C-alpha cells in the first residue's frame, strides 16, 4: 500500500497527543452534595460487581478514540494500491432532452423513462469505466464530464431537465465523439424517442453508437407554424396565420382560440385531415398602443402539452417620419409616400446628426452624408468610405443576377433581369449581408448594428428600370418596415425555442434582466448595445423589464409534434474490436477507511452513553 499524501500521517502525533492529554487532564465532574453516599456506594459496588472489566471502560474509549484518529489520518494520507483492472472503456450517455420527450404516452413521461434506462446502464457499467452525460436539446450540453465517480454521474442524471426545444442530435453526437476522441473503444449510448431524422453523416469515429428507444405512439396535435403579417388590403391591420398539425389517423376537428393579453379574442373550428395539417387565419387584428401578447391555443388534451400553444407579439403601429435627402427623385418620393402612415420630408442638403435623430429613417439619394448616420438610413447611389464594403470598378449595362429572396427587404420582390445602366458593385465585408448582386459584385447590401440598420443601394435607381417595376415600391416599403422593426424574427415571434434572441438595450446599461415564461428571471450582460439571450428553453413570452422589450419563443417543429418513435440501428465503431483492456490502475482506499472511521465513532458514542 502506498500513500498519495504520506506526510499527512504526521498529523497522528498532535491528534493522538491531544486525545491522551485530555485523558490525563481527566473529566471535570459536577459537585453535588447529597444527604449521604451510603446508598450510592452500594450502587457503585453493584456496578463494579456486574461488569468485571468496568475499570477498563475508560481505556476502551481511549483505544477507540485513538483508533478513530489513526483511521482519520490514514484516510487523509490517501492510501492506494495498484491492481490490474479492466478499463479503457469510456461511455457517453446522450440524453434526448427535446420537447417530444415530455410526452406522457409512458408514465410519467418519456424523459423520465430515458433517465431510468440511463441509470440502469450506469449501474451495470463495469467498475473503472468512465462515463459522461450529454443532454441533447437545441444545443448539446455536457451535464457531467468523463468520470468514474458514479455518484457524480447519478447526481447529474437526476438534475437533468428536458426543454421545450427541438433536438440537435447531430451536434450532440459530434460533441460525444469529441469527448471520446482519446479512447480506443468507446461507446455512445443515445436515450431517445428517435423523433428526428437519422443522423447518417455524423462521424462518431471509433465510438460504437447505440440507441435506447423510449416511448410509444400517442395521438397528438400542435401548432407547428405561426406568422403575423400586415394585411395588404388594410394597412395598419394584421393577419395571424397558424398551422395546426396532428398525427392522428382519423380526421379531427379542433377549436383554435386566439387570446390577446390573456383575454379570449376569437375562436375557430378547423378540420385537420388524417396525419396532416390545416391552416387557420385570424384576420385584420388591430394593434393597440402597446406590444400585445397573442396566443394561439389549440383546445385539446393530448400527450404533449407544450406544442398546443403558439405565441406572437403584436407591436403597435406608429407613424414613420422619413427624411429624403435628394435633389429630386419622383419615383422615390412616390414609393416612400405610398404608405399612409409614413410622412416624408424633403431637403437637398445632408442633415446634421442632431437633425437626423428626429427622423425614423433618413434616405440619402445620391447625396453622401457628412458623417455616419446616427439612426436608420438608406444610402442610394453613394458608397461612403466608412461603410464596411470595398467598392469595385464601375460597370455599365449590367444586370441583377441574384437576390436574397428570404430577407424581409426582398419579400415579394422580383429583381429578375433588372437592368443597371451604371452601377458600382461592392465587395461586402464582415457585418454586412448581400441582398442583391450583379455578376460583378453586390449591388444591394444591408448592415445591421444593435441600435441601427442601414441599407446600401450602390446604383442610382433612376439609371435603371427598377422604378418602373412593381418590385420598387414593394422593396422600399419592405425596407422602411425592416429598418424600423426592432427585430424581424422577434417581431413575429418566430424565435425558435433554444435559439438566440438579441435584446436591444439603449443607454449605458451593463446588465439587463429577462423575465422568463415561468416567472423566473435571468441576468444578461449587454454587449455593444444589445443583450444576447440564449436561454430560450421554454416556449412563451420573454420580457425585459428595464427596456420593455417583449419577444416570443415557439416550439413550432413538426418532428416534435409528430411524437414519432423511431428505433435506429446501432452502428459499430471502428474501434469496437479493441474491446476491454486490462490496465494497471490505482485503487484508492480512503472511502473504506472513512466508513470504518464512522463505525468506530458510533461504537465509541454507544459505549460512552451506555456506561456498561
Amino acid at each position: 500500500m502506498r500513500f498519495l499524501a504520506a506526510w499527512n500521517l504526521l498529523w497522528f502525533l498532535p491528534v493522538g497527543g491531544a486525545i491522551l492529554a485530555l485523558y490525563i487532564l481527566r473529566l471535570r465532574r459536577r459537585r453535588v452534595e447529597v444527604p449521604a453516599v451510603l446508598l450510592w456506594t452500594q450502587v457503585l459496588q453493584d456496578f463494579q460487581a456486574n461488569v468485571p472489566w468496568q475499570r477498563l471502560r475508560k481505556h476502551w474509549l481511549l483505544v477507540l478514540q485513538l483508533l478513530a484518529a489513526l483511521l482519520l489520518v490514514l484516510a487523509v494520507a490517501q492510501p492506494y494500491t495498484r491492481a490490474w483492472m479492466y478499463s479503457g472503456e469510456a461511455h457517453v450517455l446522450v440524453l434526448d432532452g427535446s420537447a417530444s420527450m415530455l410526452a406522457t404516452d409512458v408514465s410519467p413521461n418519456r424523459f423520465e423513462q430515458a433517465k431510468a434506462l440511463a441509470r440502469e446502464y450506469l449501474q451495470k457499467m463495469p467498475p473503472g469505466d468512465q462515463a459522461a452525460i450529454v443532454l441533447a436539446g437545441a444545443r448539446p450540453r455536457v451535464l457531467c464530464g468523463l468520470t468514474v465517480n458514479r455518484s457524480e454521474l447519478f447526481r447529474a442524471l437526476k438534475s437533468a431537465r428536458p426543454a421545450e426545444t427541438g433536438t440537435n442530435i447531430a451536434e450532440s453526437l459530434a460533441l460525444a465523439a469529441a469527448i471520446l476522441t482519446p479512447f480506443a473503444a468507446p461507446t455512445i449510448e443515445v436515450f431517445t424517442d428517435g423523433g428526428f431524422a437519422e443522423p447518417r453523416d455524423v462521424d462518431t469515429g471509433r465510438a460504437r453508437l447505440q440507441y435506447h428507444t423510449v416511448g410509444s405512439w400517442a395521438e397528438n396535435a400542435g401548432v407547428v407554424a405561426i406568422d403575423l403579417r400586415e394585411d395588404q388590403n388594410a394597412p395598419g391591420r394584421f393577419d395571424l396565420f397558424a398551422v395546426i398539425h396532428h398525427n392522428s389517423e382519423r380526421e379531427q376537428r379542433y377549436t383554435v382560440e386566439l387570446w390577446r393579453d390573456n383575454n379570449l379574442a376569437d375562436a375557430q373550428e378547423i378540420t385537420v385531415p388524417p396525419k396532416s395539417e390545416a391552416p387557420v387565419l385570424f384576420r385584420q387584428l388591430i394593434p393597440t398602443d402597446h406590444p400585445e401578447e397573442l396566443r394561439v391555443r389549440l383546445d385539446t388534451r393530448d400527450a404533449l402539452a407544450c406544442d398546443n400553444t403558439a405565441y406572437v407579439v403584436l407591436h403597435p403601429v406608429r407613424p414613420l417620419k422619413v427624411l429624403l435627402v435628394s435633389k429630386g427623385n419622383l419615383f422615390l418620393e412616390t414609393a416612400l409616400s405610398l404608405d399612409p402612415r409614413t410622412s416624408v420630408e424633403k431637403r437637398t442638403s445632408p442633415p446634421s446628426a442632431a437633425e437626423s435623430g428626429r427622423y425614423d429613417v433618413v434616405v440619402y439619394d445620391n447625396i453622401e452624408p457628412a458623417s455616419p448616420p446616427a439612426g436608420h438610413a438608406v444610402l442610394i447611389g453613394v458608397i461612403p468610405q466608412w461603410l464596411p464594403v470595398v467598392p469595385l470598378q464601375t460597370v455599365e449595362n449590367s444586370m441583377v443576377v441574384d437576390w436574397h429572396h428570404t430577407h424581409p427587404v426582398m419579400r415579394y420582390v422580383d429583381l429578375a433581369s433588372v437592368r443597371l445602366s451604371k452601377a458600382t458593385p461592392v465587395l461586402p465585408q464582415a457585418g454586412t449581408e448581400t441582398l442583391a448582386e450583379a455578376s460583378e459584385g453586390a449591388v444591394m447590401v444591408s448592415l445591421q448594428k444593435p441600435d441601427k440598420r442601414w441599407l446600401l443601394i450602390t446604383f442610382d435607381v433612376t439609371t435603371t428600370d427598377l422604378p418602373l417595376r412593381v418590385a420598387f415600391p414593394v422593396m422600399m416599403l419592405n425596407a422602411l418596415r425592416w429598418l424600423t422593426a426592432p427585430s424581424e424574427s422577434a417581431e413575429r415571434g418566430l424565435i425558435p425555442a433554444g435559439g438566440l434572441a438579441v435584446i436591444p438595450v439603449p443607454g449605458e446599461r451593463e446588465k439587463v434582466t429577462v423575465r422568463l415564461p415561468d416567472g423566473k428571471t435571468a441576468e444578461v450582460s449587454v454587449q455593444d448595445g444589445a443583450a444576447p439571450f440564449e436561454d430560450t428553453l421554454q416556449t412563451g413570452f420573454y420580457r425585459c423589464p428595464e427596456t420593455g422589450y417583449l419577444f416570443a419563443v415557439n416550439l413550432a417543429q413538426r418532428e416534435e409534434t409528430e411524437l414519432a418513435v423511431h428505433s435506429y440501428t446501432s452502428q459499430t465503431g471502428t474501434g469496437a474490436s479493441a474491446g476491454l483492456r486490462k490496465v494497471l490502475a490505482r485503487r484508492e482506499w480512503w472511502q473504506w477507511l472513512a466508513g470504518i472511521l464512522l463505525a468506530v465513532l458510533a461504537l465509541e458514542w454507544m459505549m460512552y452513553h451506555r456506561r456498561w
Partner: protein
Amino acid sequence: MTPVSENPLLEASFLQRLQRLQLLVRRPLPGQWKGEHRSPKRGYSVEFADFREYSPGDDLRYVDWKAYGRLDRLYLKQYVEEEDVYVLLLVDCSRSMRFGQPTKLLFALQVAAAIGHIALCRFHRVGAGLIADGKVTWMRPVRGKQSLIPLLRFLGSPPDARSTVLAESARQVANGWKHRGAVYLLTDLMDEHWQDALRTLLARRHELTLIHTLSPQELRPDLMGDLLLVDSETGETREVSLSASALSLYQRALQQLRDDASALCGHFGGNYLLADTSQPLETFVLREMRMRGVLA
C-alpha cells in the same frame, strides 16, 4: 440550638384536629398512673382478666360468689388495669436530615410534635430525645395538655449536628430511658449501623414505630451525568457517572433498605412507615399514619 422554623411547629387548627385521635399501641405496657391503655398489671377496670384464689385481706367485693356456690372455694375476679403509656419521641437531627424542602428534620419534628400532642391529650407520659453526633438530648417525661408548650419548645430547637451515629445513640436511649413504652423513631436511616440501633431499641421490648423520613430527592433522585457526590455528614466523596441503569440500581438499593427496615420492625412487633416529605404534613398524619395503624 437552632430553630428549624420561624413559625410554630404546628398550626393551632391542626392541633385541634389532632385532639380527636389516639395512639394505637398494640401491646400492654406498664404505666405509672391510671390511664386509658391496657397495662400488664391487674387492676379495677370493667374488663375481666382472670381469676385467682382468695387470700386473706383481699377486697371481698371482688370475690366471685357464684363460683364459691358451685365449687365451695373462694376465687377472686381480676380485671385489666388501664394505665398511661410512656411515649418516647426520638428525632434524628443529623446533617443529612437537613435536606429537602421542607427539610426532613422539620417534617420529622412536626410529626413528633403531632404524636406528642395526641399522647398528651390522652394523658400519656411523653418524653423526647434529639439525636445528634451520637448523643441524645433529653426532655424528661411530661404529662397533660399543659405540657405541650414545653414539648414544642424542646422540639423547636434541635441541636446542630454533623453525623448521626445511630447505634451509639440507641445504646444511650436504652440505658437512659428505663420505662418500657412506645418509642417513635424519626430518622432517614442514613447510617451504616442502623440495624444495630433498631435491634438495641427493640431488645428493650419497647413498641417501636420507625418513621423513615426521606425527601423526594432521595426517593426519586434527579441526577444524571458525571458527578462528584459529597456526603453531607462525613464529607466523603464518590465519583459516579449516572445513567438510567445506575439510577435503577439506586432505586433497587433504596427499596432493599426499606424492605430490610420494615422486616426488622415487623419481626419484633414494631411498625415501619415511610414519610415522603413532599406530601403535606396533614395528609401524612391524618391519613397515612391512620391507614398504617399508628393512630386511630
